[in-house]
């Protein structure tokens, strides 16, 4: 059952009305509008932050919103949070909505941490008794026991954010809105936040969140919505929408810089270069020590991987990457030609890049693999195949531990043992 429904929701801003004006400016504008020549200008400076967005979020679902900066993601969350109102369309929400648009936004610097927890909780729609009941858990989560009676203005920014997230993560709304707040605090607290969101999610809370952290979006969301220029471009499975997003970002880049080159010579490939892709990864295949294609090897075995690519333009200074993820989506290994690989000056047409590894180091398990082809130093890849390939690893040379290392053991002859000992002695 839908808990949030958006029906043709639009939000416009008048560019000339951004910010508030003084009566003098207003009168000048009115005078200008009276002149016949400037008639009809009113509509021209209208800017659609969101345009006719239709969306339904189901109860208990986690939906991620991705898109370039300024695409309208935050506007959408603010609409859901009732901070701003749509110009057209309807928004239907069942139950309360709590927004984490900015962590700790309701804090008053002069009040203590304790007072602020109650105030913030109350702004978020909690009753005093409810806050009191959860107070200890909130303080414990924030790890702020020592400073809870200190005015918030004396907090460091990290402390501020920790307390803010702690309160927000313990309120119990029907819908939780999270805007880019996972990127705060140190690594330890970040993982704590993500874990808490995962907990809330499993507890059946409906969550809508905006992020640029694609691995987090993919891991946490049931569905992902891609918003661009105020329009909902796609909504669906995280993997598919994320790869569409990457392609769209490339397309936007291409249309501005490479348009002229692109008009010739690509007629045959028009289907695959639909998104204006310059290159793509066709497949990643694994081979065992005997050279046979396989999806299963053992720890410590020799492994060969071949990345089959195709380019539509000549690409200079490309970088191939493979990322190995465990089933619980932890990144275990990142292999890149940027560091270990032989320099590849340019890639014309189609081909294969081979990666050889004697004594594969990952411990037994099933790994999902990202294949990435990008330009050195560029943020947006030419192609990203998220978790597209699978490699099963069986127990081999290593039985226990996190990973295997190539190794040689040998027994030293007695004379050598003595020299090592004396070297130790002089050091000591």
């Amino acid at each position: 059952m839908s808990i949030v429904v958006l029906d043709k929701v639009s939000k416009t801003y008048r560019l000339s009305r951004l910010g508030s004006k003084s009566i003098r400016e207003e009168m000048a504008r009115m005078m200008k509008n009276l002149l016949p020549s400037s008639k009809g200008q009113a509509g021209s400076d209208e800017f659609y932050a969101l345009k006719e967005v239709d969306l339904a979020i189901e109860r208990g679902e986690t939906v991620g919103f991705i898109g370039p900066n300024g695409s309208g993601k935050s506007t959408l969350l603010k609409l859901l949070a009732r901070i701003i109102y749509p110009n057209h369309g309807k928004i239907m929400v069942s139950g309360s909505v709590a927004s984490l648009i900015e962590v700790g936004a309701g804090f008053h610097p002069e009040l203590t941490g304790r007072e602020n927890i109650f105030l913030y909780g109350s702004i978020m729609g909690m009753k005093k008794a409810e806050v009191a009941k959860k107070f200890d858990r909130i303080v414990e989560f924030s790890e702020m026991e020592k400073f809870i009676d200190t005015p918030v203005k004396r907090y460091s920014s990290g402390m501020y954010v920790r307390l803010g997230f702690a309160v927000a993560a313990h309120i119990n709304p029907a819908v939780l809105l999270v805007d880019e707040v996972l990127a705060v605090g140190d690594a330890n607290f970040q993982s704590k936040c993500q874990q808490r969101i995962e907990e809330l999610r499993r507890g059946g809370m409906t969550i809508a969140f905006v992020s640029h952290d694609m691995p987090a979006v993919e891991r946490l969301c049931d569905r992902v919505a891609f918003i661009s220029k105020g329009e909902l471009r796609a909504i669906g499975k995280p993997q598919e929408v994320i790869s569409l997003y990457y392609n769209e970002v490339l397309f936007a880049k291409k249309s501005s810089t490479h348009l002229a080159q692109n008009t010739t010579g690509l007629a045959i490939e028009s289907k695959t270069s639909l998104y204006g892709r310059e290159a793509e990864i066709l497949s990643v295949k694994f081979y065992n020590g005997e050279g046979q294609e396989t999806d299963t090897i053992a720890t410590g075995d020799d492994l060969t991987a071949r990345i089959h690519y195709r380019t539509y333009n000549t690409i200079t200074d490309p970088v191939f990457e493979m990322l190995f993820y465990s089933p619980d989506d932890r990144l275990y290994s990142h292999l890149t030609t940027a560091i270990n690989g032989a320099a590849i000056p340019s890639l014309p047409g189609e081909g294969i890049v081979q990666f050889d590894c004697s004594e594969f180091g990952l411990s037994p398990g099933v790994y999902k693999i990202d294949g990435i082809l990008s330009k050195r130093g560029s943020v947006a890849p030419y192609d990203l195949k998220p978790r597209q390939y699978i490699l099963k690893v069986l127990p081999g040379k290593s039985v226990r531990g996190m990973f295997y290392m190539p190794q040689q053991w040998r027994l030293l002859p007695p004379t050598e043992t003595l020299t090592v000992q004396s070297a130790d002695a002089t050091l000591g």
Partner: protein
Amino acid sequence: MSATAIEKELKPDPLLTTPPPHEAQSQEPELRNSVEWSDSIFSHLKELGHHLELLQLTTQRELKIRYKQTALGAVWAVLQPLSLMLVFGIFFSYFAGMKGDAGMPYALFSYTGLLSWTFFSTALSFAIPSLITNSYVITKIYFPREIVPLSCVLAAFVDFLVAAVIFVGLLLFYHNEITINWNIFFVIPLMAIQLLFTIGVSFFLSAFTVLYRDVRYAMPLVIQVWMFATPILYSATKVKEKSETLYTVYMTLNPMAVIIDSYRKCIIQGLTPDLKFLGIAATISVLLVLASYKYFKHLEREFADLV
């Protein structure tokens, strides 16, 4: 780490397994935040009712932050009207020989006016820019926005009550020179009317300031002029002596004049206030609150875009 280990680590939150009460009530998505969103005063009041605790907390916050890191704390609430009373007593009464109403010590006369005027002007000076100074919350979290100016008015009202302690002291000091009788109970409806009137002006001007920042700069001047147009340092009977028509216009258009004049009549002189003017002032206050609340809620939707 294996998947099952993660599963164990993330046990469901015991507080989350019980569904929140609001979910049980409303199974169907309720219509809200749309362009057709209900605009009736009753639904606004109902929502405000759900946020009374927040109103209480923000009022406490207003009071706390106002006196935090001040050596004298809440004494400032008393000091303001008291020092003005002394200054006016010295300059207007002692040097200029001004008189209050008949049979009224000038200290008591001026303190009555200053006390209620201080409440009014303090409330306005905090409430009018309040939406702008609180923009950091308004653009981030939803709550009924009227809580912001309302808490400023209520905090000023608490100051008013604190400063009224001195007033009681003055009444006791001068008890031989004044008449106190049952009419003193007019104080309660008078305070209610003044509170309503102050809330009405605050709603309107705080919302209007979001549209036009000019209000912020015009306000100190307007409050000063308004103060001279209110019988604080002089007696309303002085106006009446000059011209009866002028007096009618004066008392009809300025509810603050009626309120202050009535305070003096019912507390110090033991008289019944002029019920005709008081009725007009009460009507103006009620209509003003309703109209400005509606105006406020209408503009509210644009606050986050404009502040």
